[in-house]
Structures are given as structure tokens and as C-alpha cells.
């Protein structure tokens, strides 16, 4: 077991309840998909030792960081957990190279093998700065750096301390997309080389997808199960998971029976059948159904499908596609959207569509929270 976290903490904002693990070397990274929430940061603080959980334990490899049962608690400076959040700051009275040097000295004092060379701090300093694109900026004070350079310097400082685990709480928030991607890629590469596990938290599904092949969704302070990223993106089980992974067509449902639900806003009744055509019970606690825009089609697909009437259609043009939106349940209902690549259909053709279809197996049955 690389990392095991099982903690509870009562906070002003509500209960933080986290239970997850990075079991083995096959996938050292884990993404947490979660809206900005103080409990997300509190989770990282509990792992890093900056705050204590009310109960539970955190273990990294063979080291118990905290265990409320056995009253074990390792101070943060001995955990060697690199933590980077959008609020982490450089030491403002030190230059960039002094910030990094301090981290290198700390690693050296802790007896961590930095390299086989003589005077490793001074020898490694230029390399660390170079790894994060800070060549020529070592002498600058934090106030003289741009936001992107500051984040790069923070990354360099964190990695210079030779952490055993890296926790990233959306550290690139507010940066342009290109810088975000390059910084996260850089971190992933450096951590990959040193075999350092990363736990990355963000509300951005694409970033979470890029950082790890395993993702968990955190909802209302509680973590759901760790899922394979493609599975989560294709078949989210929870409403939050669906919304965070880009399912735009979502509507609440009323449960009619164990096998049937009504989506009043779309004016359709939905059920699930097995291969023999028999009704299959819907998931317990179902609260909504969802359809990915790409799963809607104009032609009736083979096999079981749901037909959705197109009422009050509108077409909007984007650089690469035409987006058809319509209200299946009439004027008062929620709009459904699907987009088609430009050139495949004209605006007029889209406006004349009377109904669209979704394969039954593509319908997403969403529950409020997944505790499995």
C-alpha cells in the first residue's frame, strides 16, 4: 500500500469524511474531482500534518502519519509531504534561489540522498531551477515575478525538498491554459522520474483526467470510490460526477416504481431492460438521469432506445460545430443540447428535426452520492 487515508473531521463547513488509497505502483497518482471546498484543503492539511483529523489514520508506505486509535502523530516536518495550493506562497523576504536553497538544505539536513556530488545544495540548485524554467530568475524576489513564474518557483521549491508524497490542491488556478498544462506536465514528469505519488485535487475534469488514470469524486466533504478515469467519464454514477465530467444534459426524476422513473422536465418515462427485454431495477437512490450530447443521434439506433421529441428547437453556431438545443417537454421544460460538426448538417436541417434518440445503454442513471 502506497497511501492509505481514512479520516473524519468535523468542520464549520460540515463533515469531512475521506476514505481512499493508492494501493500499488501500477498507478501512483490519484485525482480528486471536487468543487472548491475548504474541506478539500483540510483533507490535504490532515495528510500533511498541518491539522489533525478527529478520528482515523493516514499511512504512507510503512510510515504512520497519524492514527487516532494508537495516538500516533508524526510532526509535519518529518512527514516530508510536498503541498502546493493556490494559496501557497514563496518566502517573501528571500529570493527565488534562496527559497529553493532553503528546501534543498532542509532535505540535506534530513539526510535524504540528494546526489553523490560534493556540496549537493549548490550543485543541485541550478538543475532544480532549470527543471521548472527558472533559468536566470534565481536572483529575483517573489514580488518581481509573474504569477506563472511564482507557481514555477513554488514547484521548484517543493520538489527541492525531496518529498515522499506530493499534494496538489489546484495550484495552477487562475493561470492561462497553456501555463497550467506546462506546469502540471512538468510536475508529473519530475514526480514520475522520482517515483513520487501525486494526489491532485481540482474542479477541472480535464486536468484531473490528465493528471491520473484513477479519479475519485468528492461531494459535500465525502469521498466516493476511486474509479478508473475512462469509466468515470463514460459512466458516472452520481449527479456530481456527471456534472463535473461534462454531462450537460441532466434532469431530475420522480421515481414511479423500482423499474420506472419520470423525467417531468423532459416529459419522458425511463426504464431499463435486460437482454431478454425484462425490466431491470434502477439504482437505489436515483435522483436524475443524464445524456451526454454525443450520445444523442438523429437516426433510431439498433437495439433499445429512448425517443425524445424535439420542441422549440434553436441552433447556435460555434467555430467548429452547430449546437441544437430544444425543449423536449414543451416551453417550460429544460433544454437539451447536442452538437454536430459543421458541414454534416445545415441549420435548416437541424431546425426541422422532430425527434432524437438515445441508446438505452447510454442513459446515465444518477444517484445523489456514491458510498460504495
Amino acid at each position: 500500500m502506497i497511501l492509505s487515508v481514512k479520516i473524519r473531521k468535523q468542520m464549520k463547513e460540515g463533515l469531512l469524511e475521506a476514505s481512499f488509497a493508492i494501493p500499488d505502483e501500477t498507478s501512483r497518482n490519484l485525482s480528486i474531482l471536487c468543487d472548491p471546498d475548504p474541506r478539500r484543503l483540510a483533507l490535504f492539511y490532515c495528510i500533511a500534518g498541518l491539522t489533525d483529523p478527529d478520528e482515523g489514520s493516514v499511512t504512507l508506505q510503512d510510515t504512520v502519519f497519524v492514527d487516532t486509535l494508537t495516538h500516533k502523530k508524526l510532526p509535519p516536518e518529518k512527514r516530508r509531504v510536498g503541498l502546493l495550493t493556490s494559496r501557497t506562497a514563496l518566502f517573501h523576504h528571500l529570493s527565488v534561489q534562496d527559497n529553493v536553497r532553503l528546501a534543498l538544505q532542509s532535505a540535506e539536513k534530513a539526510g535524504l540522498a540528494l546526489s553523490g556530488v560534493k556540496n549537493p545544495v549548490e550543485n543541485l540548485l541550478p538543475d532544480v531551477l532549470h527543471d521548472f524554467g527558472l533559468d536566470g530568475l534565481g536572483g529575483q524576489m517573489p514580488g518581481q515575478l509573474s504569477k506563472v513564474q511564482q507557481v514555477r518557483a513554488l514547484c521548484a521549491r517543493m520538489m527541492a525538498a525531496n518529498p515522499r508524497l506530493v499534494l496538489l490542491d489546484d495550484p495552477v488556478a487562475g493561470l492561462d491554459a497553456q501555463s497550467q498544462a506546462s506546469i502540471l506536465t512538468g510536475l508529473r514528469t519530475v514526480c514520475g522520474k522520482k517515483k513520487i505519488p501525486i494526489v491532485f485535487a481540482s474542479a477541472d475534469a480535464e486536468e484531473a483526467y490528465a493528471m491520473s488514470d484513477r479519479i475519485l469524486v468528492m461531494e459535500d466533504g465525502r469521498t466516493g470510490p476511486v474509479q478508473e478515469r475512462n469509466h468515470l467519464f463514460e459512466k458516472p454514477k452520481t449527479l456530481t460526477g456527471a456534472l463535473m465530467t461534462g454531462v450537460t444534459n441532466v434532469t431530475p426524476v420522480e421515481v414511479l416504481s423500482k423499474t420506472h422513473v419520470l423525467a417531468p422536465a423532459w416529459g419522458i418515462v425511463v426504464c431499463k431492460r435486460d437482454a431478454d427485454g425484462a425490466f431491470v431495477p434502477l439504482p437505489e437512490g436515483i435522483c436524475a438521469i443524464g445524456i451526454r450530447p454525443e450520445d444523442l443521434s438523429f437516426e433510431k439506433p439498433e437495439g433499445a432506445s429512448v425517443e425524445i421529441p424535439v420542441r422549440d428547437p434553436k441552433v447556435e453556431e460555434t467555430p467548429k460545430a452547430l449546437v441544437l438545443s430544444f425543449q423536449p417537454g414543451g416551453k417550460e421544460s429544460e433544454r437539451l443540447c447536442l452538437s454536430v460538426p459543421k458541414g454534416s448538417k445545415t441549420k435548416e436541417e437541424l431546425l426541422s428535426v422532430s425527434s432524437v434518440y438515445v441508446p438505452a445503454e447510454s442513459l446515465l442513471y444518477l444517484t445523489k452520492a456514491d458510498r460504495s
Partner: protein
Amino acid sequence: MMELTTTLQLVLCLVLPALFLFPAGLLARTAMPRFLVLVFAAGVFVPAGLFFKGLLYQGLLFVSAFCLEVVLLHERAVKIPREEILSAKTLGLTRHEIRSQLVYPVMRGAYLLSYAAALFRILCAYDLRFAVGVLVCAALLFITGRKR
């Protein structure tokens, strides 16, 4: 009401504000709620003058000097963001290293200036020199503590 001798008074004036520096520094470095800062700021102006030359007068002046030290040191301490301290912990810096690398470089000079301001408070309790002295100390504290 018994009056203190001049020598003893002078010794107390020099020694007590120095002794106050340690607890004042500790208080100032904690994340003090804003209302507590206001309480200490108000404490600088305790009406010691009402008990002219009495023991209580001396005592209140010392209380006032302590409040002044807390307020001035707090002004400097808030320049050390909590996030920097937390970062330092995750980088593996011990408490001693955090003090020597982060706190002292920022607090350097602040103790001396707070001590000077407290002395002005006690020695020139209610005259213009006190006001000028404290203003000069506060200005120096602000200038020397500016973020680079």
C-alpha cells in the same frame, strides 16, 4: 499611597519593557483576532493620568507599554503570512529553523523599536515627546518591515 524611589522607578522603566518583549512577541505572533488587536490598541491609552504619581499610575503605565509592544510587534508579525509558515513545515523545516529563517529576519529590529516606543510611553507618559517617539518608532517599524 506609597511612591517608588526614582532609582527603582528608572530600573523598572528599563527592565520591565524588556521583559515584556517576550510575552508580547508570543502574543503578536499568534493569529490574534481583530477585536483583540483593538483591545490592545485601546490599552495603549489607559487613563493612567487619573491616578497621578500613585502605584496604580505606574502599574497602568506598564500595562499601557505592554499593549504598545504587542500592537507594534503585531504590525510586523502580520507580515509573515500563515501560508509561509505552513509551507515551511511541509518543506521539513523545524520550529527552530522556521524561527531563524522566517520569523527573525522579518521581526528583526521590531523588538528594539517596540522597546523604544514602550520606554517613551513610560518615561514621557503624557507629553508630546511620547507621541513623537511612538510615531517615529511605528514609522521605522513600517519602513523596515516593508515587503521587498
